[in-house]
């Protein structure tokens, strides 16, 4: 099977900027995009760098953008792509993370965010001699999130991370669910508090990108909704994160668009908004992107208001 791979190349030691290079490869019937890249690296151009190991969608090394979508190169079959998306396949590094070389990105931020959700069991109380006795169902519910192989595909495609690097993001929050939902953990309340801070579960706009990107059916957005529901059940409605969403909803309801300044004030309280957001305000000012001080209604605002009422929001 002949295929053309258009690969984005960048070597910080020699290149000013990234550029595409085209390679023709001949692959067996069940060849994956990774097999194509390996054959380029082995036979045509050994300077091509990417991460890969298991070839079976379990080590999480090989996420990259293939035809513009974040996917695992080892799980993306060339024959299917050719059939559905055409003969030329483009391959680029993941988004939302700085490129080190070619298809390799720096994932420090990814790991830092995972680390920020306290991703380890914290049991309380007496330690059993043997195992904790828990139901199979309660464990298998967590298996969905344990499926995560930390590949970064979801983070690469997340639309909120694109504009707000502070957001914890889909992978870390799916991990958060895994611990908040574990009956053996002793810090559920504290965890939920942490996860509902700004940058946490309430910042997700439910754009669905992470669900379609995830190669392991973790469906991070749904896990985020699970954590929101847990937080609501636990009575955590007056957190800064939840207020952020309330403000978000009321801003959209009343004017049909987001009043970013008002949003900040409602979330943080009028006085703290000025202090806590100062650096961001300054950054935006430098980029001339400060939200308009007078918030204008858009034309269909009324309809949007009705929509919200109808939904009972």
């Amino acid at each position: 099977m002949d295929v053309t791979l258009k690969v984005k190349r960048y070597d910080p030691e020699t290149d000013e900027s990234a550029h595409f290079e085209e390679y023709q490869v001949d692959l067996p019937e069940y060849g994956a995009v990774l097999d194509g890249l390996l054959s380029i690296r082995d036979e045509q151009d050994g300077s091509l760098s990417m991460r890969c190991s298991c070839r079976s969608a379990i080590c999480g090394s090989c996420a990259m953008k293939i035809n513009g979508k974040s996917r695992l190169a080892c799980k993306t079959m060339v024959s299917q792509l050719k059939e559905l998306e055409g003969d030329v396949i483009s391959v680029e590094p993941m988004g939302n993370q700085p490129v080190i070389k070619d298809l390799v990105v720096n994932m420090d931020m990814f790991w830092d965010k995972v680390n920020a959700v306290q991703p380890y069991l914290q049991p309380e109380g007496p330690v059993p001699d043997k195992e904790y006795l828990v139901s199979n169902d309660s464990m298998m519910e967590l298996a969905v999130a344990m499926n995560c192989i930390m590949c970064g595909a979801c983070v690469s495609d997340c639309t909120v991370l694109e504009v707000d690097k502070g957001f914890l993001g889909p992978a870390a929050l799916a991990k958060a669910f895994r611990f908040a939902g574990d009956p053996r953990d002793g810090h559920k309340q504290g965890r939920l508090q942490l996860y509902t801070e700004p940058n946490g579960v309430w910042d997700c706009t439910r754009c669905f990108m992470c669900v379609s990107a995830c190669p392991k059916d973790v469906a991070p957005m749904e896990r985020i909704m699970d954590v929101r529901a847990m937080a609501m059940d636990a009575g955590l409605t007056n957190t800064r994160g939840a207020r952020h969403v309330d403000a978000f909803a009321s801003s959209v309801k009343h004017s049909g668009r987001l009043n970013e300044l008002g949003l900040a004030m409602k979330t943080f309280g009028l006085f703290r908004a000025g202090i806590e957001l100062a650096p961001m305000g300054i950054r935006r000012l430098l980029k001339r992107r400060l939200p308009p001080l007078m918030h204008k209604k858009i034309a269909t605002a009324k309809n949007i208001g009705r929509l919200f009422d109808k939904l009972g929001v």
Partner: protein
Amino acid sequence: MRQHQVIIIGGGLAGMRAAQKAQEMGADVAMISKIYPTRSHSAAAQGGVQAAVSEGDSWEAHAYDTVKGSDYLGDQDAIEILCSEAPGDIYALERMGVIFNRNDDGTIDARAFGGTSVNRTCFVADQTGQVLLHVMWEQLLKSGLTTYSEWFVTKLLVEDNKIAGCIALEIPTGKVEVFRAKSIILATGGIGQVYNPTTNGLVVTADGQALAYQAGATLMDMEAVQHHPTTMKANGVLITEGARGEGAFLLNSNGERFMDKYAPNMKELASRDVVSRAETMEIREGRGIDGCVLLDLRHLGRDLIMTKLAQIYELARDYANTNILEAPVPIQPGHHYIMGGIKTDVDGRTWDATGQGRWQGVEGLFAAGECANVSVHGGNRLGGNSLLDTIVFGKRSGAGATEYANANDWAPISEEAELADQEGSIQGIFGRPADGLRSSTLRFEMGNAMNDGIAVFRTEEGMTAALNSVRDIKERYPNVSVHNKGRVFNTDLLSVLELGYMLDVAEVIAVSAINRKESRGAHAREDYPDRNDEEYLKHTIVHRGGDGDPVLDYLPVTMTKWEPQVRSY
């Protein structure tokens, strides 16, 4: 120069477990791994981990199954430790957060696996290794272990036969540094890429075995290379033994369940060497399909498959274009595991700490996991015993290395000379013409030669041909060149270094295999079809001679309670 009391090379299960133990004991520890720890090949383990936690089971029964599975080549003192510490370690992992499948009463569930007399394999669906690996990693995030991720170890530094440290290359920058340590634990995993095809990942390249061998340690039973009965033809990817554990059948082209013939009692669940040989016989005798036989899961039903074997469903769909709910999937034996490895005692020491000098080792150098050979698997490993090996002996080597570091001084290191030497050899590779020989060309040649000569069935002739190929490739190796002469994430350079490791190890495998003139476990010779306890109930040991050639010797097998018997399933 960086300095840590205990340095662990490898961030898989064995390495992380060792790090955890050493940290717990108060050592200044650091872990070096050429890939981010969660990417380690331990993640690929699907089926489960063995431990006698079920009612009616006992560690003694586990030990007996393991001794028998090893075809009596396993050291029984080590096997007793493995099996008796297993339940405690599995419970410890559960308390750290592993979500194991459960029984109705909330205790850990266990499934059937090949070569075991009762259901003993604890599991998390078919993603056991991944969950174990991630939980160990979580624990190390919690304790704040110093980790050098994406650092590639190029050399062990030895002074007066004592470990002094190692040299490593930071992959994202290409910078080379010297690490000083009082003790070092090698936990670098298997040798997969020595074979083509293999179920192992692309980074599984025998680094630790070669580093130890080059530093003066001993490799033991390297002929004991295991082929797994169910791997996919397209790319060698594994279908877990858990599939047969849950009741899948093996069929030949006539639709017959042929294992009835070869292992009337255990059938599909006989030990791996037995099943791989049976499949090969069927294929040879013309009852295969395109070099494969069939694994049939249809009768297990959608519910069971989708809850306990979901990953297999996906792998078969992606790599064999088969919906296992509706059709059997073609499979064949493929390279999977090496029972042999760096010779250690039960605390991970590579040297003979009794002072009897029975084998050559390096003081202060430890090893654990697949790169080590304690020896608990002997001639053939049982499924689920390897994860257990990483957990139990990872822990023990972590303790051993910490005790050693506490009792010993730093060995001297000449940092500048070492760095200059390393830089010189990198520049040497860069200096070769860019249009020269590719490392991949030689890697495939080696992999094919090993797979042709030293696989499921072996003969003097076939193995000698493999050895000759490997030696021929070794001669051409110094001409291998790279396209990439930069420093940043230069995987082209790493491939050259990895090939060097693999060639040394391939040679030792071939030499060891040719010299075992009997059939035992995975080492099945057509020219010597029987086990010969009189002459070969002993370990093959190899160290590197002064001229660089392997030097062969033997060690007795340790027996405690189990006398060798005829092995039937």
